[in-house]
């Protein structure tokens, strides 16, 4: 199946980001295709490239970027990002900034669209 994922909350502050990641891992392990991950609202902070979490903690941005390296399309909402100070120079490799139209497309093309938020 083609599964689209919408993430509405930022990293560390809410479990939503972790839940989304774990769900995607499990879906890929079952052979599903991730149509894309759309980061909206505070979700745009997920791929902030300057993150430096404590050494014994998970590195959320790096984890997303590695998923991007496997071919998962990581899309950061441009309007939400600009507002919050996230620009193309400040996002992780394998992620990109684009508009809500991408979310609309994902809704049309994916077999399932699942939201993680709070």
């Amino acid at each position, binding site marked *: *199946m083609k599964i689209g994922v919408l993430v509405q909350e930022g990293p560390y502050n809410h*479990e939503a980001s972790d839940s989304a990641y774990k*769900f995607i891992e499990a*879906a890929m392990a079952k052979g*599903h295709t991730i149509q894309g991950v759309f980061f909206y609202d505070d979700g745009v902070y997920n791929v902030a490239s300057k993150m430096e979490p404590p050494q014994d903690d998970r590195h959320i941005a790096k984890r997303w970027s590695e998923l991007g390296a496997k071919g998962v399309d990581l899309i950061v909402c441009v309007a939400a990002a600009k507002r919050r100070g996230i620009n193309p120079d400040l996002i992780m490799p394998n992620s990109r900034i684009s508009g809500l139209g991408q979310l609309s497309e994902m809704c049309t093309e994916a077999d*399932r*669209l*699942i*939201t993680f938020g*709070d």
Partner: protein
Amino acid sequence: MLHIVSRSPFSDDSLKSCVRIAKKDDPILLTEDAVTGVMPGSAVASLLQDAMKSHAVYALSADLKARGVDRMLDGIKVVDYAGFVELVEQHKPMTWL
């Protein structure tokens, strides 16, 4: 349709709204803080017991373990993330934020 509830049913109204709206036989999956609701003898036990008359109610194991939930109402089904994905294969998901 699969109804996903992630907020604590003690402090938030999302589980209550989900149960009010969900159609008979639609499954409900409790994740994140919502798994705290499955302990027996709690103030939301009757809400969940009523829900189980019309819905299969699942709880996500990783979240149960993280919160030390070591006892559950009869009838709650435990799933891991693979089981979560299977539920999404079978039903379109709707998340109650």
